[in-house]
């Protein structure tokens, strides 16, 4: 039973059934990252998926942009407590990128240009649940939000949606990524409030 705070009523920005517990709604788009913002040029941009057998599947910016585009409108939830509803993106479904890649992998490690990593079960990237996103709100994704392209996995806390995505490594077992080694939850379901280890 939580301790009741005398005289606390709250602003209840977000108590609308679409906002997971412990979250509040924002209209702006806060920026969180662990170091300086990398500047990644689309001319040299390359996206790689490596399988557990070591085979590599690579896309240049042009090759990636030639794939069928999707326009997801999704709610996003940051572990630092803000949520943002109806965010509009364009990107390539991970189903499209993973199609034709033969794998027995159960998990994925996402790698970013700044050295950041985060882990996910492979099934969380399939089934229309995840994208490689390159526009936000109709504009090219800005560098501070992970541009030119980031992972978008809206059903998990947003630290799983790795910015400046460079590579996915398919794995036969789970391994913790950057924040997961630094005390955050391995999976990160906002509706279960899986913020930190042990939640």
């Amino acid at each position, binding site marked *: 039973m*939580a*301790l*009741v*705070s*005398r*005289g*606390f*009523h*709250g*602003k*209840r*920005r977000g*108590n609308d059934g679409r906002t997971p*517990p*412990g979250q*509040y709604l*924002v209209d*702006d*788009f*806060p*920026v*969180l*990252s*662990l*170091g*300086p*913002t*990398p500047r990644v040029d689309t001319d040299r941009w390359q996206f790689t998926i490596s399988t557990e057998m070591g085979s590599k599947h690579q896309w240049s910016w042009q090759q990636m942009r030639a794939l069928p585009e999707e326009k997801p409108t999704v709610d996003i939830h940051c572990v*630092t*407590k803000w949520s943002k509803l109806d965010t509009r993106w364009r990107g390539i479904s991970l189903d499209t990128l993973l199609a034709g890649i033969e794998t027995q992998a159960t998990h994925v490690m996402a790698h970013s240009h*700044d*050295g950041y990593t985060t882990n996910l079960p492979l099934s969380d990237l399939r089934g229309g649940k995840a994208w490689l996103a390159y526009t936000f709100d109709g504009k090219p994704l800005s560098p*501070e939000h992970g541009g030119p392209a980031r992972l978008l996995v809206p059903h998990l806390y947003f630290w799983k949606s790795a910015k400046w995505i460079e590579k996915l490594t398919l794995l036969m077992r789970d391994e913790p990524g*950057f924040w997961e*080694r*630094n*005390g955050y939850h391995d999976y990160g379901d906002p509706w279960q409030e899986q*913020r*930190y*280890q*042990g*939640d």
Partner: protein
Amino acid sequence: MEWLVATLVEKILETHTACTLIYDVEGWPGHQPGQHVDVRLTAEDGYSAQRSYSLAQPGAGDRIALTVQTVADGEVSPYLTSTLEVGEQIELRGPIGGWFVWNEARPSPVLLVAGGSGIVPLMAMTRARSLSARKTPFRLIYSARSSDDLIYARELRSLPEGVEVDYRFTREAPPEYDDRVGRLTAQDLASEKWQPDSSPDCFVCGPTGFVESTADMLVELGHAPYRIRTERFGPT
């Protein structure tokens, strides 16, 4: 991670908008300078709100300090700084964050750059250095609107030898800094003694725009991106 009960034991007014709150937290596991806590407030009907606040002091038993900047239209900060009285309790848990921390065993010099209440976790590091037997060189660059907005102003004037402090006032400066009104520049960050080749560990904390531009300037000056750790708060 468990929610712990924290009892407010002291409230120190730092500026017209910032307050240091000292809590006794039974079972506090200890922390490193730079880490933060999650605070949870719960209304009578069960509605609850959570926010993160930086720990202002190095670990010392069951006692912790948070310095909270009151956000005028905020949900949690006005309650902590105004409504909550000494002797009353809240819930919190932590410590959280294993990246934006200073480890006193590291020999590298430390360059700290604070914007506004971004000073809080950096002050925890500076205080940890004072308590440590090591004489790691520190430099703190603190950007604030005016001298009235400086948090920990008195303590900053009497830091031990080996800690340099420079200020940058963005709106109104005291006479001795009159030529230094405006945003932080690369010149403020550059210093003969603090060249990138001395490989300082850089910690930058403040509002998003401040941290973005400061980290970019540090990279341009030649500091390795992997030596620059950032913590951003507030809107874009």
